[in-house]
């Protein structure tokens, strides 16, 4: 559905996207992830035909965006970042305008607007002036707009940015529900979002591809296995033992109620057993009781931090030789 090959984009001397290649298959709901400034919006704007690329090619449903612009654009529904709308129009008026613009035939227009109003759950607001809507509702109008004409591909740029938790949950559910009928590419800098709404993810950092695959593949992409330990003993004692091994003990939190602490060891798979054994020995020698040792799953947050860390370390190298781990 989307084929991006060797895509680069510079704003003057700033390289926002560098040699990016990825594909999105029909029917996938793909999260497009990256920290702020990673180049997500730039990439999506190029996919949607709003910006030209410096080099590389983008194909939407088999049509090159640069060469067959209209064919490519008529197959995608795009919601830009921050979802800009005309404040003076009513929701219904706006969507009828957009439907006409997208070539929905006159006779089908009213029904189509009704359909997307309902899908995006803004049917009660058709007669409300857009300028009076809350951010959450404006975002939904943007999604309704993207759905007009039922394009096979939807590209949504940060549809949950700036919303409150309830709205985020609703928009996320909406995105997930679109998965059956559309291919969806949705950008975000929030990881849980991808876990909850997407089947696959593409991770970029500073314009470069960092990881691509199913959520499980991404999780493993960090390349570090994890083991969680439950330890009985005073918090200060546990911390003292852990601090000496801060490179591998990535988490250490006291659970006050039970007088225990939870530790997480993270290391490359082949060294994990060795480090775990060493830590257990150190804890035992210190008179602390190891109650439980279980394999742990990295959260996407952690993987993301690890995936984007190398770049960050490189960037900050002159200031700080050894990055601190939390």
């Amino acid at each position, binding site marked *: 559905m989307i084929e991006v090959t060797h895509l680069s984009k510079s704003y003057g001397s700033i390289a926002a996207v560098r040699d990016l290649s990825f594909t999105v298959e029909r029917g996938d709901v793909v999260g497009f992830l990256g920290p702020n400034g990673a180049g997500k919006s730039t990439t999506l704007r190029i996919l949607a*035909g709003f*910006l030209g690329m410096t080099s590389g090619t983008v194909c939407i449903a088999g049509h090159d965006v640069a060469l067959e612009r209209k064919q490519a654009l008529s197959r995608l529904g795009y919601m830009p970042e921050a979802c800009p709308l005309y404040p003076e129009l009513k929701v219904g008026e706006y969507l009828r305008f957009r439907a*006409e613009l*997208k070539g929905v035939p006159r006779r089908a227009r009213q029904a189509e607007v009704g359909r997307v109003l309902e899908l995006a759950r803004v049917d009660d607001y058709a007669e409300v002036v857009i300028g009076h809507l809350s951010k959450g509702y404006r975002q939904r109008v943007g999604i309704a707009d993207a759905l007009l004409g039922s394009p096979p591909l939807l590209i949504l740029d940060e549809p949950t940015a700036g919303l409150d938790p309830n709205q985020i949950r609703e928009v996320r559910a909406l995105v997930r529900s679109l998965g059956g009928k559309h291919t969806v590419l949705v950008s975000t800098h929030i990881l849980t979002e991808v876990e909850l709404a997407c089947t696959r993810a593409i991770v970029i950092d500073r314009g470069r591809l960092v990881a691509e695959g199913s959520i499980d593949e991404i999780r493993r992409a960090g390349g570090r296995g994890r083991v969680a330990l439950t330890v009985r003993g005073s918090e200060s004692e546990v911390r003292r033992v852990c601090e000496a091994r801060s490179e591998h003990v990535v988490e250490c939190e006291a659970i006050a109620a039970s007088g225990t602490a939870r530790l997480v060891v993270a290391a490359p798979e082949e060294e994990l057993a060795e480090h775990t054994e060493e830590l257990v020995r150190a804890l035992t020698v210190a008179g602390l009781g190891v109650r439980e040792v279980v394999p742990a799953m990295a959260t996407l947050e952690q993987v993301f931090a690890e995936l984007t860390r190398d770049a960050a370390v490189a960037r900050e190298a002159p200031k700080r030789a050894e990055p601190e781990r939390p």
Partner: protein
Amino acid sequence: MTGFFAIWKREVFSYFVTPLAWVTTTAFLVLQGLHFYLIVASFAGQLDLSADAGPVQTFFGQTVMLYLPLLFVCPVLTMRSFAEERRSGTIEPLLTAPVGTVSVVLAKYLAVLATYVAMWAPTVGYMLVLGRYGELDWNVVAAGYAAVLAVGAGYLAIGTMTSAMTKSQLAAAIASAMAIMGLFMLGLGEFIFAEGPLRDVASHVSVWTQMNDFARGIVDSRRLVFDASVVVLPLFITVRAVESWRLE
């Protein structure tokens, strides 16, 4: 041309929901009404109204009262066109809809042109009043309006162009007002320069002379060719500017 009519309708609608539009239109009509009243009052004593110097001729020609409003009205009409859409970001959904750049530019331009025509429409009432109380040469009236349309069409095209050059409505308005002013001044060169090519050029582009000629029913096609080029060239530049945003 898909989407052309949709954009045109929205542009006209959006213009008339802004208070600035009503203020401008009202001020324009009040000024023109006053202008007309003064002319009629000054002609009231005269019995012999020749074809060369009647109230209609004075309304369209031989007065700066016609250009002053144009100088303000045209920049105000056009300043929003692209600048506001770029400032607010709505240009992004607009240009990612499957519509061509030429459609977008023409729809926006023809929307301001239609608004401009709508602003002048009530002044036809003055002509009807004149027609009731005296001899009125409708050919002269038609030529006068043709000149108003031809000159305004060029000014609006210039305004559309400057609106595509900046994200600030104010900057767009100032830039187009200055360009229009410059064009007007260039025409005044007709009265300043000595006989020669410079003066020929100046008289060719002179809006002042054009209005005077048209107001006397003299429609020179060379004038219209010049007016058309003042429409086409800025619009061509606008199309190129809109396309270049994608590459910036």
